[in-house]
């Protein structure tokens, strides 16, 4: 058995080694991220059979929790960390084709993936803050790394909001520490019934403010369109496919496992609805396709958080399964959209609908991939999005919020409207032809294959998601496998 902590240790090791390799040859740093992700994936996959329903405990410093920090990996976190590493692998392969990048870019990229994986794997709440900061700071750097006006502005906005958000998150952690005397998630969860309501609520609000920034909840998501808009297409992919996934995991872990579905989830419910509606409406009027994708991304996250919050109403496995399906669809579909948009716009930052007119016809592969991504996001049959959307509606029905189904459907129609408008425009008239090299094309095709293959045959994904969901739902198993006795 290979210890999963190696995922973090080896990523760090690789990141530290990149400058040394860069001194040897300019070409070597580029090869490090894919190698690291491959090794990580191998480690994680060998661990699949050891992770049972409860959490797998990985200690550090040779001491048992709650004395020392530990990793706690159950199937839910394993699924998310594999997802993160997989998309990281695909993106790092994508970067292989682009030379003349600064070697420091690869370090930032690697650390970004590391931060996301760390958040997902850790069992210590302060440790999650540290990884959150790794994630955020590397994201500011990645967003701003394009170094033009838009990228810098987006990066600055993200930085300001992220800094305040994570500070509030830290304060929330401290409040929990002061009341329970522990920083271990399982221990805090175990002591949760003994915490006075008011303290619980205050801590939950503070933590919500921190996580809300990552999962793009309504008033905290104002940075998102700007950052997505300003960043390079690959970085936007990373923001939507990796960073927000870590946020979802954290939200599920903290508000469900630790707080056991407290007021915070009720607040998330309303915020999710507002986010969903406002973001999709904002996307409707957007002429800039990239910003439109950003709004759509926020909207998807709103829907996701709204579904996640339903678990408070009824701790239902299906609800969490739906969340996972939505997250997978968002990760692959939206990632595909951002990447193919980059190919359609030729990477020169012209994202206006008029400028893109006909480019889909001139670049058939990119146009086709964009269409596939869009159709999956709006939930058309034969794409993975269909199953996630249907599951979302079924979750709403199962939890007796039938009126929301109508809302979701109306907003979905809005979604169809603006995506349809873009698709139709892509194939109208004569466009500009841009070349696409083989490696990015292959990566995009892999993204698309996921969406299509599992759109036609969703059964395996359903099963995996379900087993992951079961391990999140059984919070007592999680707690007792880490801290013992409940």
């Amino acid at each position, binding site marked *: 058995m290979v210890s999963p902590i190696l995922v973090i240790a080896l990523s760090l090791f690789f990141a530290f080694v990149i400058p040394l390799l860069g001194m040897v040859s300019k070409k070597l740093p580029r090869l490090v991220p894919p190698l690291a992700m491959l090794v990580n994936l191998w480690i994680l996959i060998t661990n699949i059979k050891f992770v049972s329903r409860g959490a797998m405990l990985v200690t550090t410093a040779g001491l048992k929790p709650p004395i020392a920090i530990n990793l706690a990996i159950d199937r839910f976190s394993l699924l998310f960390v594999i997802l993160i590493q997989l998309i990281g692998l695909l993106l790092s392969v994508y970067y292989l084709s682009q030379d003349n990048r600064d070697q420091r870019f690869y370090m930032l990229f690697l650390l970004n993936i590391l931060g996301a994986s760390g958040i997902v794997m850790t069992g210590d709440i*302060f440790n999650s803050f*540290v990884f959150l*900061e790794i994630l955020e*700071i590397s994201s*500011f*750097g990645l967003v*701003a790394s394009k*170094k*033009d*006006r*838009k990228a*810098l*502005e*987006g*990066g*600055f*906005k993200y*930085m*300001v909001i992220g*800094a*305040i958000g994570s*500070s509030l998150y*830290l*304060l929330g952690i*401290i409040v929990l*520490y*002061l009341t329970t005397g522990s*920083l271990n998630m399982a221990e805090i969860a175990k002591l949760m019934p003994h915490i006075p309501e008011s303290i619980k609520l205050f801590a939950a609000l503070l933590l919500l403010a921190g996580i809300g920034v990552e999962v793009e909840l309504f008033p905290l998501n104002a940075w998102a*369109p*700007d950052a997505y*808009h*300003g960043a390079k297409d690959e970085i936007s992919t990373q923001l939507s496919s990796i960073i927000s996934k870590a946020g979802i995991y954290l939200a599920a872990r903290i508000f469900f496992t630790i707080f056991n579905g407290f007021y915070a989830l009720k607040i998330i419910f309303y915020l999710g609805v507002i986010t969903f509606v406002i973001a999709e409406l904002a996307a409707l009027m*957007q*002429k*800039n396709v990239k*910003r439109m994708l950003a709004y759509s991304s926020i909207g998807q996250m709103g829907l996701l958080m709204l579904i996640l919050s339903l678990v408070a109403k009824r701790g239902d496995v299906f609800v969490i399964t739906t969340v996972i399906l939505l997250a997978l669809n968002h990760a692959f579909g939206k990632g595909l959209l951002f990447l193919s948009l980059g190919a359609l716009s030729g990477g020169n930052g012209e994202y206006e609908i008029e400028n893109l007119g006909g480019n889909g016809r001139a670049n058939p592969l990119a146009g086709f991939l964009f269409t596939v991504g869009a159709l999956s996001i709006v939930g058309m049959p034969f794409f993975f999005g269909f199953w996630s959307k249907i599951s979302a509606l079924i979750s709403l029905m199962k939890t007796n919020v039938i009126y929301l189904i109508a809302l979701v459907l109306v907003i979905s129609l809005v979604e169809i409207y603006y995506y349809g408008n873009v698709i139709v425009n892509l194939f109208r008239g004569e466009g500009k032809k841009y070349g696409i090299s083989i490696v990015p094309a292959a990566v995009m095709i892999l993204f698309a294959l996921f969406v299509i293959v599992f759109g036609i045959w969703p059964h395996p994904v359903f099963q995996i998601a379900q087993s992951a969901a079961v391990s999140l739902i059984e919070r007592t198993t999680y707690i007792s496998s880490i801290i013992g006795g409940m």
Partner: protein
Amino acid sequence: MNGGLLFYGSSVFLMVMGIFIAITGKHLIKILLGIDLFDVGLNLLIISFGYVNGGTAPIFSKYPHIFKNVVDPVPQALVLTAIVIGVAEMAMGLAIVMKIKEKFGTCNIAKLKELKW
């Protein structure tokens, strides 16, 4: 004097002032400093949480020691981490601001209006 008012009050005051500066400031550096002030206030607050009446620093220069009244060591360790993270964040922020100054030629936040459509 009431220690709570002094320590809690001053650190919360620092946080509030930091946010206020960040919200109303026009200069980018000023905004960053506001955020930093917020972080400093927060760190102070965390340290003051750890205080135990009559406690000393958690360093035992004589060993084996007789258990004395010491303050909580954990918030201090956490604050150490938080400070370093704050430094890193500030460094990153400053780098972005320097780049902005280069590209926009100004540090006035009202002039940063590239991302609207």
